[in-house]
Structures are given as structure tokens and as C-alpha cells.
């Protein structure tokens, strides 16, 4: 008997509920398994010496200090280019440009750029920065390639942040006689800062995890520069990041201990970045109730 008060359970419903829960739990279990597996496999090789020495058959040391320095240099150089230009583009789109052909063209370019896979950026970087500009396989070539790759990420995050600044701020400041640049510098950028920082951190995360765009642009050298000047000239030489080293360790070098130790370091970085962006978003959430 089916009546209003006596709900009939449809077998289909039960099955679908089961599938929905299964899928939801799958991602949690998958992540858990990845973390545990990488931790178990990587923890034995991961040590202070591993992080501060360079792999050398002569001295019998295994380490990724060179790769860490390369990664940091690439982050530094790409972000030095990408942050001002990405933020600048967002400011133009949000504050200066009138809706029109040019704006839709720029937005189309941003969309397209963010849809291009990293291997294509790698090919382009190799051809343009490496060959046409003569930079060869170098950290600079890699950095410039990644600069183009993370540009849309920063632009879009800054745009979102600028959009959330109330229009009253702009009108108020302009009504007091301030120029546009003055308003941007003193009011809009500070208000949008959390969004900009979030974008920058996300971009750093992408750079840390990138490998396909770097293998043909920055190469794979793992040496550690000894002096400050060597550190700067390092920009013009080949250098592999941690991800590139992981790839080589797991494939051609067949050194899985190193591969898993790097994987563990990368997972920790990913986790820190993830938590960092969350904190910032929470701290500066204007809709949050005090």
C-alpha cells in the first residue's frame, strides 16, 4: 500500500545513493592512499643531507639541493615578470577599458592562453626564447616560458579581486579629485591585495608542479652554484627543477628512492600552498560574519 505518509523506497534511489556515496568516498580514499604510499616510500630517503647536497657518484652523495635552487630561481624570475604584467592587464581590463572589441579580444587571448597545455608552451619556449632569442637551454628560457603560462592565472584572480571592490570606493575617491592611477595605487590595489596574493601563490604552485614545459626549455642539470655570481650566471645555464628530476629519476635513471623522496617534498609543498591560499581567503573574506 502506498500512501502519502508511507513513503515507498524505490530500489533505483537506493542504488544511486550508493553510487553517489561511492564516488565521493573514492576521491578521499584515493588522496589518502597517495599520501600514505608516497610517505612510506619517500620517508627513508628524505633527510637533511638529501635536501642540502648534490647527487655525485664521486662523493657518494644523493641530494636535490641543486634542483631546489633551480626551482626557486625559476619561481623568482617568472613571478618577477608575471606578477606586474598579469596585475597590470587585470587593471586595464577592469578599470580603464571600455567594453568593446579590444577587451573581448584580450579576454579571448587570456582564455586561450589558459587552455594551452604546458607541452605546447614548452615547444614554443624552446623555439622562441631558446632559438630565436638565443637563450638556449637555460633557467631563463624556462622562466620566460612559465611566465607566459601563469599570466592568465594571475590576471584572472586579480580581475576577480578588483570586481569585488565596491564601486563606492572608486566614486568616492574620484569625487575627492583623485586621478585614476592615484585611486588604483592607494585604494584599489590594497583592497584587492588578498586576491592578488592568492593568484600569485596559485601561480607558484603551478610552477613548482610543472615539468612538461621545462624539459625542453630549462633542461635537467643538477649542479649547485657555489658563489653569488655563479647563482646569477646560473640563469643562463641549464638547470632541472625538482619535478624534472623526479621524472628523470623515475624513468631514465631508474632511481626510485630519489623519485619518491622528491614526490614527498612536492606533496608537502602542495599542501602548504593549499593551506596558505585558504587562510588568505578566509582572513580577507568580506562576507564573513565577525
Amino acid at each position: 500500500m502506498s500512501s502519502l505518509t508511507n513513503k515507498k523506497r524505490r530500489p533505483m534511489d537506493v542504488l544511486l545513493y550508493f553510487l553517489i556515496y561511492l564516488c565521493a568516498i573514492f576521491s578521499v580514499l584515493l588522496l589518502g592512499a597517495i599520501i600514505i604510499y608516497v610517505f612510506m616510500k619517500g620517508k627513508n630517503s628524505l633527510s637533511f643531507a638529501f635536501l642540502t647536497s648534490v647527487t655525485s657518484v664521486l662523493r657518494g652523495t644523493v641530494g636535490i639541493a641543486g634542483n631546489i635552487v633551480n626551482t626557486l630561481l625559476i619561481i623568482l624570475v617568472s613571478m618577477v615578470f608575471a606578477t606586474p604584467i598579469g596585475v597590470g592587464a587585470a587593471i586595464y581590463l577592469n578599470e580603464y577599458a571600455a567594453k568593446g572589441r579590444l577587451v573581448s579580444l584580450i579576454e579571448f587571448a587570456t582564455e586561450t592562453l589558459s587552455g594551452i597545455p604546458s607541452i605546447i608552451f614548452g615547444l614554443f619556449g624552446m623555439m622562441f626564447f631558446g632559438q630565436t632569442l638565443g637563450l638556449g637551454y637555460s633557467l631563463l628560457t624556462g622562466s620566460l616560458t612559465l611566465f607566459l603560462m601563469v599570466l592568465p592565472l594571475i590576471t584572472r584572480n586579480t580581475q576577480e579581486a578588483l570586481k569585488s571592490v565596491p564601486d563606492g570606493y572608486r566614486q568616492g575617491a574620484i569625487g575627492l579629485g583623485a586621478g585614476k592611477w592615484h585611486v588604483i595605487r592607494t585604494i584599489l590595489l590594497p583592497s584587492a591585495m588578498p586576491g592578488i596574493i592568492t593568484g600569485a601563490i596559485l601561480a607558484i604552485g603551478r610552477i613548482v608542479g610543472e615539468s612538461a614545459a621545462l624539459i625542453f626549455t630549462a633542461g635537467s642539470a643538477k649542479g649547485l652554484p657555489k658563489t653569488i655570481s655563479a647563482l646569477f650566471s646560473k640563469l643562463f645555464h641549464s638547470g632541472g627543477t625538482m619535478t624534472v628530476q623526479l621524472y628523470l629519476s623515475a624513468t631514465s635513471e631508474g632511481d626510485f628512492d630519489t623519485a619518491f623522496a622528491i614526490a614527498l617534498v612536492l606533496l608537502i609543498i602542495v599542501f602548504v600552498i593549499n593551506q596558505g591560499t585558504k587562510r588568505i581567503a578566509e582572513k580577507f573574506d568580506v562576507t564573513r560574519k565577525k
Partner: protein
Amino acid sequence: MNSRAKIRLGENVAHHIFTTSALMQIFAVFSITLYMVAKGAPAFIKVGVPELLFGTQWQPTAESPSYGILFIILSSIVGTGASVLLGVPVGLLTAVFLTEVSDKRLSRLVKPAIELLAAIPSVIYGLLGLMLLNPVMYRLEKLIFSNSTGHQFTGGSNLISAVIVLAIMILPTVVNVSVSSLEAVSPNLRASSLALGASKIQTVFKVTIPAAKSGILTGVVLGIGRALGEAMAINMVAGGSVNFPLPFNSVRFLTTQLVSEMGYAEGLHRQVLFSVGLVLYIFIMLVNLTLLRLRRKETE
């Protein structure tokens, strides 16, 4: 120069700097397209369009080399299609869980898990596939092909491994886009359906999901783009020879072909690799244009 002129100069300079920054992205897309076409086209002319696109022999270093990339293109299409077929239902149901089934405790675990899965570098997925999936595949392979003479043993590096890794990698994309499109469905629609006596599950599958259709489709297309462009992870698990994309064959994709041979290729071989890059670029552009059209439809 008085201070007012100085301010006006500053304003002008700022305006120009911001405009230039914005034009940078147009310049980037334009030059990437230009380079891909300029470097990828010559081999099409030298080898011949039908020979290159529809040739099934890939022997770039043979005495009389042949450069047919049909199997590579097919592998990319089949691999992407299969991973989407696998990843989208799981992703969609996860999104349904997050938006429609209100289990707060489990949601608090699922959401961050999806975020972290999206952030894990692709080489780590490749490493895990290599260590965990490939041995299982090898065991299956030995079981299935124990009496076959024609099968080339791959040690487990095959199309299935690549498809599974890709499906996992596109999962977060599908979940995120589906979540936001399901959230955008008006609560009135759900309420009306429930008021008419439909069960919650009926409402989800007959009302909410159809209403969020275009957003979910966007997620599918984004997933296709990610799967097509992924290189390092699948290069580690899919093996190293060009074959017709059968489940237990070792295959090369458009992307992995570039990763594994660009390092040493010379002459015409290298130029053909650039053509492979151009084919990949054209596929990606088609995906991008579809995406753009979908988004435009959504905002209308």
C-alpha cells in the same frame, strides 16, 4: 614642471603601462600560433599531408624512414575519450554529493580532497601509475595473452594505465565545474519537483542535472582539453612504441611523442615532431573554441 603636470604625466604613463600589459597576452597567443604553424607546416609539405596524417608506419630512424602519425592521433582521441567516459560520471556524482546530498561531515573531507588532487603535480601521478598500475596490468596481460602469439608484451605500460591516470587527473576539473553549475540551479526548481512528489534522487537526475546541463558540458570539454594536453604522467605509464590504440598495447600520444623524441630528433624527424605539435595545437584550439561558445551561451 608643476605638480599638476607631473600628476597628469604619471596618469598617462600608468595608462600606457597597463594597456601594454593587457596586450601582452594577445601577443603571446599570436606568436605561439605563428610559431606552431611556421614550424609544423614544412614537414606536411615534405612528407605529404595524406602520408603524414594517415600513414600507419612510424619509423623515423629507419634507412627509408616513414612518418605516419595516424596511430598517434588515434591514441590521443581514444585515450582522451575513454578517460572522459570514465572520469565524468564519477566527477558528476561527486559533484551531486557535494551539492545535493547534505552530509556535512563527509563533505568536509571530500572538498579538500578534490582540491588537493587538483594540485598534485602530474609527475607524481605518473610515478604512482608506474609503480602501482603497471605491475597489475602486467599480471593481467600475462593472464589474458598467455596463449597468444601475436601480442607484444609491454610489461604493463599500456593504454589502460594511461586512461586510468588521465581519468583521475581530470576528475577535479569535472567536479569543480559541475559543482558550480549545480549550485547555480534555482532552488525553486528543486522545491517544485519535490512538491510534486518526486523523490530526492528523481529530482536530482530528472530536474537538477538537466537544468545544469550546459555547465556540466563545459566541465566535460575542459576535461577533454586537460586530457588531450597531459604529457608527463601518461608518458611514464603508456609505454614507448607507436601502436594501434588497443587496451593492452603500448601507445604513444601526441603529447608523449613530443616528450620522448624531441630530445634527440634531428632533420626531418624533428620537423615531423613539430607537425605532431601542430596537430595537437589544432585539437586544443578546437576544444578552446567549443568552450568559448559554451560559455557565451551560458551567459546569454
